[in-house]
Each structure stands twice: as C-alpha cells, then as structure tokens.
C-alpha cells in the first residue's frame, strides 16, 4: 500500500542525505520526495511517499525515527489527511488542439500560466491521481515537458505535527 510519511527534520547540512541514504541502504522505496523549510527556521518538513506492506512501513518509520536528525514524523495515511501536489506542464497548443487544451484545463480547474503561439504552460494542483489523469488526458495532444513537486500533505482536523 502507498503511504505518505511527513517528517520534521533538523535544518542541518547532511540531514537530507541521511534520510535518502537510509531508503537506499535498507532497500526501501521512494516514489516522491518533497522538502522545504517550515515556519521554524531550525526545521525542514520532508514528505515522502513510499510503497510497502505493514511490516515494511513499520521498519521505515522505526529506522527514520532512529536518525538523530529526525525530530518527529507521522504516517499521514494512517488517518484523514489532505494530499496535494503541484505540476507544471508544457503542452503543444496548435490549431484546433489549442481550444481542446484550454477546455481540458478548465475541466481540471487548472490554469494556463504562460502562452506562446505554439505552447501553453499549465499549472495544476491536486492529489497524485488527479495529476496523473490530466497527464493522460493531454497525452494524445502532445506533452512537451512535465515538472511535478512530489506530494506534500497535512492531516485533517485538529491533529498537528509540531515539536
């Protein structure tokens, strides 16, 4: 099963490499990885999506917790949560397909953020499934380039991941 693990990490050089190294060292899988500073300058928040059965996920969270640079972590998929990813896509927009792209962008509630006579650059946010669907819908028209941020997430309700 797919899990989204969010980690509060010491904002120190080398901390990220310890997390990433752990996954390769122990043969765990990283599907997406997203990291940025938080409101507390001493902490980064890192979100990783990974696949594995309960035993593997238990080992992943235990080993992550063992890293001295990991301050706190939560497996968001254990409870209700919000998952978002941002994607920028360059799509071929020529002739009749120019309208088709525009229509599809509207259907997905995406936005066109840059225009040239032959290319639309589209910005879209949502969960990973929605982004996959958009890529699929655009594929016949012609995707030129895709940049995805990887998943970021937060729990619903009053539950908070903080120190």
């Amino acid at each position, binding site marked *: 099963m797919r899990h989204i693990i969010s980690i509060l990490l*010491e904002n120190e*050089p*080398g901390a990220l*490499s*310890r997390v990433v*190294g752990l996954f390769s*060292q122990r043969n765990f899988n990283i599907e997406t990885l997203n990291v940025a500073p938080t409101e507390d300058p001493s902490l980064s928040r890192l979100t990783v999506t990974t696949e594995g059965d309960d*035993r593997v996920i*238990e*080992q992943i969270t*235990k*080993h992550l*917790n*063992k890293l*001295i*640079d*990991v*301050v*706190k972590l939560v497996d968001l998929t254990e409870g209700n949560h919000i998952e978002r990813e941002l994607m920028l896509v360059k799509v071929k927009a020529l002739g009749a397909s120019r309208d088709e792209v525009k229509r599809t962008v509207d259907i997905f509630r995406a936005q066109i953020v840059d225009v040239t006579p032959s290319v639309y650059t589209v910005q879209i946010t949502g969960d990973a499934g929605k982004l996959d669907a958009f890529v699929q819908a655009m594929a016949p028209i012609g995707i030129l380039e895709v940049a995805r941020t990887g998943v970021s997430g937060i729990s619903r309700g009053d539950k908070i991941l903080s*120190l």
Partner: protein
Amino acid sequence: MELLSGADMIARFLQDEGIERIYGYPGGAALHIYDALFRQDKVKHILVRHEQAATHAADGYARASGKPGTVLVTSGPGATNAVTGIATAYMDSIPMVVLCGQVASHLIGEDAFQETDIVGVTRPIVKHSFAIKHPSEIPEVLKKAYYLAATGRPGPVVVDIPKDMTAPTERYEYVYPKKVKIRSYNPVTRGHSGQIKKAVDMMLKARRPVFYTGGGIVTSGASENLTALVKRLGFPITTTLMGIGSYPQTDAQSLGWLGMHGSYESNMAMHHADLIVAIGARFDDRVTNNTSKFCPTAKIVHVDIDPSSISKTVRADVPIVGPADSVINEMISLLQGREMANAEALPEWWTTIDGWRAEREGKLYEASQPGERLKPQEVIEAVYHITRGEAFVTTDVGQHQMFAAQYYKFDKPNRWITSGGLGTMGFGFPAAMGIKQNFPDDVVVCFTGEGSFQMMMQELSTCKQFGTGVKIINLNNGTLGMVRQWQDLNYKSRHAHSYVESLPDFQKLIEAYGFTALKVEHHDELDAALERTFADNDELVFLDIDVDPREHVYPMQVPLGAMRDMLLSKTERT
C-alpha cells in the same frame, strides 16, 4: 573565562571527559590537534601502524571496559583506513568516537590533497556524525558525540574537523559542557510496564521456555540481573555469539550459544520451545537460519532498546522497548511470590534437554594422539585450562573464532571480544592490544589464524613501542579454514584461493620485532609451549601451532533449514 584554540579545546575536552587513552595516527590535517596533545600529559596517545588498527584497538577497549573508545586520524586516507573499524563497531553496537582531521574549510569540495567526504563515506555505518563549522562549537559537539556513542543503543560517532577549526591563532571561550540535550534523541529509560507484566505472565505459564540473550546484556551491564532472573525461574538459557559470558557458561542452566555453529542442545531447545524470551538480541540470520521455519511452536517476547530491532526479521508477540537492565529488574520484582502455572512441565523440559546434551557428549571432535598434529579444538581447551577461564579473549574471523567460542568457557561478561556482526578478519590482534594496554594486569589472549593475523600484523611494532604483552595463539592450518569448509561442503572441495601459499616463517618474523615466538608441530609439544607462553604476563609471545587442516566446525546449521537442522560431523546430520 578561558580562551583556547580549537586544537587545545579538543585536548582539554578529552581530559575533562576522563579519556585516558586514544588511538591514532598523525597527518597534515590533524597536526594542530597532535601539537595540542603533545603539550599535555593526561591523555595518552597510542601510535598505531595503520588506522584500521586504531579503531579495532579502541573498539577492544570499549568492549572490555564498557566505555567509549577514542580514535584520532587525519583526513583522506587516514579516515578511509578507519572505515572497516567503524563498520565493525557499528555492527556490534560498540561505543566509539572517531575524530577525523579534514582539509581546511575553504578547500572542501575542491578535491584538495588528502580530501575525502568522510561524513558521506561513513554515513551508513555510524550512529551519527558531525562536521565542525566553527571552533567555538567544539566542546558541545564533542560532548554530543560521546553522549550519542554511549547511550541508548551504542555505536560509533564520527566528528569531521577541518584544519582551520583547530588553528592555534584563533582562540575562543572554553567551558566543559557537563550535559547536553539533543531534542530529537531521547533513549527510553524503562520498558512499558503493561508489556512487561504480560511477558511475566507468559513466562509463568510456559511449559518449554528458553531465554535467548545477546550483546545487549553485555552493553547494558545487565549480566547480574539476568543471572538472577534465570536462576529465579530455572529456565534454560542460550546466548548469541555476542552475548557469550553474559550468563555463566559453566552453570548447568546454560546451553551455550546458538545459531549456525551454536551448540546442538541450544538449537534443539529453541526449535522445540513454546516461549522464547529474547533480550538484547536481534534475531540475526546467523542465529535464526530460515526465518519461515524458525521456532514453529514458540511465542516470542522481545526486549530491545532499539525499536527497529523488534519484528525486523521475526515477528514478536510481546515487544518491549527498553534497556535490558531495567526491564529485567522489573521482571524480577513482578515475579515475587508467584509460582509456575505448570510446575511439572519444567522438569520434563529439562529431561528432554539433558537427553539432547547426552546425545552429543564426547562426540564433538576426535582428539589427536601423541605424535599427531593437534586439533584446533583441543588447543582452545588447553588455553582455557591454563588461563583458568579468566583471560580476555579476542579472536579474528573464521574457524578459529568458532572453535574459540565453542571451547573457551566464559563466566563473566566483557571477556569474549569478537567481531560478530561484520566478521572482520584482522580485528583480533589490535583489539587485544587495546585491551592489554588498558588492563595490563590481566591475561589477554588473541586466537587467530595465519590468514587473519597477516591482515594486521604490523601492530607488532606498536606492541613493541608500548611494551604490550598480549599472547597470540596462531592456529595455523595453512588454509583459510572457514572458506575451505564451505568449499568442501558446497563446491565439491574445489579450494579456490582458500590456501595460503608462501607463508612467512612466523618465528623469524616475530623475532625480527624482538619478541618470542614458539612453534608447536605435534600434540606432545603443546603443554610445555603453553607453560612458556603464559610464564610472564608482561611479555608478548606468539605461539604458532600447526593444526589439522581437515577439521570442520560442527554443529553447522543446514542452509535454509530450521534451527534444528544441523550437520553434526562430516557424516552425521539431524
């Protein structure tokens, strides 16, 4: 307020931390630190002949004393030479602090002379690492390094120190930090009471229980409490290779150690048990054999300070995260006034176990006859007798290591010193050196083989410089015995590169360093040679013994089998 340079802070910190002896080798990036060490006399520096030996010597000291070992090396090759020793300590959870010189900050990343990203190289084999960013942070970082190395599940910590951080001209305020806090690091101090209660209830209801304990008992100093608990319950106990000595092996309740070359009775008892109480052990593959066939009828209680060790390879029914010593203590108090639920079951279990013991008694190996080459096993037994079982024993890796574990009996913890997890050939001699220098009144024996010894024999020179009287027992069979054994069993005796051609004349080699070496070729010469070897505790003696190269280590678990599936000799199996 005291102003010190970074280098002087390091020397001063080591004094304030109570570090008496460090092991190292100088080089460009570490020279400011060496100069600071030169200008004081409290911390003694032992100059090794190879940085790997520095880590093994510090490691040997740590295993024997329970305190962190300290290593000081220079950047680049100095640091990379230490890598095998760091990995050895990591795999066996040994506390160690490795101070590495580094090229000056402004050169980092430029492929400068003797530059290596040692923090990157060692990342998967350290508990944690630090890179010094400013001289003023040295005292706090070093305190954190020792704190991390020695607490929780211990392990090696690397501190990378760029040369400009130790410059003699820049001085900063030095205060010895008595305590440090790391917000993300809070090792548990006691186990969950509810879980411990559950475990105790299971122990009292068990019909065929076994204690299975490991290096965690030695590390946490829980030997005495463990012995009390095992005595109180009357259960059989087997230990891992790393746990040898944590329960007196000459006691009737001890089944010896378990696993691939463990005793017949301990592997049989594990397989048939209905309750396994694992404490400070990690269900290593050399213990469990095939995990899907592991102990089919047993419920498992697993106590460990490291949550990631629990249910890693074998699912625990009652996981308890906590330090062995305090959990055992709590178990003992919960047992007060309580009785076994099935009082008749335990004596029956012991009858079964004694049956297994009797089956193998006297059948472990065939002793040599007068005039014949010695068997390695009988050499170990003879050394056990002449040292009355009280020596510190280090080993290298291979057949001699297994024979030493099987035939030297340990009644005390911290005396059996071996590279269990990583299996590092070359570990034994420098480890013995490190122990002897810190415990000069004790007898320190290194069992080795002609293959392993040659990996670290340059340390003879260090022993000469510091007058270190270790006893080296070289079980010389002219082949890489364990490799050859596997080739005999799995490769139709095609001995691909398992023989050691052109061995040196060890007697002449040792004499060249100014030490005594003795040669034993036959059974009849052993006793006199051992007398001579152990006559003077301060003298390094190398005893080169020709042993039978055909000997295999048995029992040996059958690959992919259950605990009970063992080869018992070249012709028998369970």
